[in-house]
């Protein structure tokens, strides 16, 4: 029972990341009609915003180490510690949450630049060409990050207050031994929050209503005198923010390297297709579903019966869904068929 609950949480966690990326992918596809293979790169860029913020905050200077007296010793001391003492150290420790605040404007800028600089020229071209050019862009972004940060994964810690395990069992009245990392719980709730925010934005604001109208019939909305193009560009920016924040938050769970985006992109595309191309609830549901399925498949008991199933389960599910229900779980008929 405990093990099942843990796996469920693990799966929801992973599913949260999948869902956030897939949500952005679907938003971009639904509004601009562009298949964006560089969306994983945005996730990766978000993660590296967190790394960069951490580096920036812990920028340090070499000072004499006073605690060692019998020889001349030096240590690195962050400027923030020198200037603000303990407060500075606390700021460094909380670099990941801070980086989320930084990631929002940064990712918005990157998203807008990407849309205006490249994507807008590909609205009218075939999906194959969109895939190819964004695939090229993803390679370029990955390589630039590699030049700046090196090829190795860079670990960044979660704030110490929430780095440890949370006594989940005690809260739920189950066994005391049932614990779960705090940060992963936070990740799960934040991703739910972001998803809710995006849906609320689309559903309950006038701006979102116009965007939805544009998704349904772009031409008519344009004829009503609304600059729907600009709103779609903003939606691309929002998708970039969602992916970036998801990436920044994921850093304490998985140290990012320049390939992170590609790895998540493949899975996210599977998620989008399973959920149904163009369906936002489908993308979210499929993200969590596949995360949970993958997590259950990696349980020891399951692996004893079907060895290696955890490696291929997502793809198996994708194949099964696509063959049994071609348009995905919640997709509309005829989207992206040709």
């Amino acid at each position: 029972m405990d093990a099942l609950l843990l796996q469920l949480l693990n799966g929801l966690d992973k599913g949260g990341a999948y869902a956030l990326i897939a949500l952005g992918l679907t938003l971009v596809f639904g509004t601009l009609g562009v298949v964006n293979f560089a969306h994983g790169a945005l996730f990766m860029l978000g993660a590296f915003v967190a790394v960069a913020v951490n580096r920036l905050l812990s920028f340090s200077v070499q000072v004499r180490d006073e605690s060692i007296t019998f020889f001349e010793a030096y240590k690195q001391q962050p400027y923030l510690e020198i200037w603000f003492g303990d407060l500075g150290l606390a700021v460094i420790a909380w670099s990941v949450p801070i980086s989320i605040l930084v990631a929002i404007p940064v990712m918005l800028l990157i998203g807008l630049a990407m849309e205006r600089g490249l994507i807008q020229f590909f609205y009218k071209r075939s999906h194959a060409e969109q895939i190819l050019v964004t695939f090229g862009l993803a390679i370029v972004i990955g390589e630039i990050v590699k030049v700046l940060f090196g090829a190795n994964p860079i670990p960044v810690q979660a704030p110490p207050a929430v780095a440890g395990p949370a006594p989940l069992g005690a809260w739920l009245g189950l066994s005391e031994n049932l614990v779960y990392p705090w940060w992963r719980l936070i990740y799960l709730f934040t991703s739910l929050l972001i998803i809710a925010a995006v849906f609320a934005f689309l559903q309950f604001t006038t701006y979102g209503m116009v965007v939805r109208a544009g998704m349904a019939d772009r031409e008519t909305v344009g004829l009503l005198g609304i600059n729907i193009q600009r709103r779609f560009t903003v939606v691309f920016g929002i998708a970039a923010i969602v992916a970036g924040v998801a990436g920044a938050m994921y850093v304490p769970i998985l140290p990012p390297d320049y390939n992170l985006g590609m790895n998540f992109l493949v899975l996210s595309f599977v998620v989008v297709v399973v959920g149904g191309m163009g369906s936002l609830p489908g993308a979210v549901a499929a993200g969590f579903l596949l995360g949970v399925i993958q997590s259950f498949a990696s349980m020891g008991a399951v692996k004893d019966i079907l060895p290696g199933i955890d490696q291929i389960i997502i793809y198996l599910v994708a194949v099964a869904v696509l063959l049994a229900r071609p348009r995905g779980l919640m997709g509309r008929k005829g989207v992206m068929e040709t």
Partner: protein
Amino acid sequence: MASITEFNPSTPKKDLLIMAVFTAVVLTAPIWLAPIGASYPDLLQRFAIFGIFAIGFNILFGLTGYLSFGHAAFLGIGSYSAVWMFKLFSMNALLAMAFGIFVAALFALVIGFICLRRSGIYFAILTLAFAQMAYNMAYSVLTPITNGETALTLDVADPRIIDRAILGDAKEALPSPSLFGLELTGFTSFYFCAVMLILAFWVSLKIFRSPFGLKLLAMKSNQNRMQYTGYNTKPYLLVAFVISGMYAGLAGSLMAVTDPLAGAERMQWTASGEVVLMTILGGAGTLFGPLFGAAIIKYFENIFSALNKTQLTEVFGFLPDGMAEALASVSLLFVGEGWHLTLGIMFMLVVIFLPGGLMEGIYRLTARVKRKRESGGAVSGGAVQPSE
């Protein structure tokens, strides 16, 4: 997609000429590639192998428009089958290749049958899913067959039933792949690959010219209309898929012939992406494009990624000292470790400005030159090329 296809009325005579020139060019490659430092057998045979891979991919993608993102699976399957043939039966390269192609064809038949029920991006994702399954399983469940991360290699103690029956088991050293006693190493091995490339190209040329090839092209431009005229398109697509899988199997088994080991990384989706890049870069749907693309990418990979700072400083040596230094450090970002950056940029530029690949660039250039000559150099901007 504005595609250029080789649908120009061609005569058997013209094709014979193309084949003759192609054969001559491939066989003399070690000579004319020497000035750009690409004439060592290891790189040359990689040109040939990836050329075959890309030519085969082009039969599917270029002719039918079905974008497979999992073609590397067949490459890996071909490699594994060939190495198993070496281990179990014989070191004869032809046997191994035949087996590699056969097994790849079987897999392509099954996978193609399933994937071709969908089209568009769904087809791409389905093929990707199968390739990823193959890759992940090669690393986990199938380790008895694939030897997992250590890669499948030859061993002195392998059975090699046929070889031992003929030669006896006198041999103590690790044998290498051979062609009826002729050891395939160095340039011998390149020429072996070159002959295979020429054969592969010939088959592809025949397919392009055949009614079958034209049917595939017709499906690419409008599959519905094709079905209205009474064609059942699925069998044709499946045959194209299997043929292109067999090409990948051939390429994979040639990899095993030139270097008898097989690892799962050959099946990773990045490898599938690479062949897509090659085909697009050169020009999908053209005869020569994929070959060009494969050669260019492999050339970059081998030559550019080996460049380092000292060499670069030498290249810019004619400039003033500080400038040479600065230029060298800037261009260092694009070579050596960073050659993928160059690849990505090049690829983006091609997709943005030359969607038909480098071949389209060549066509445009020749068309411009022709027009200039015809109108005596006074070309007006109004001269529009006919589409198709």
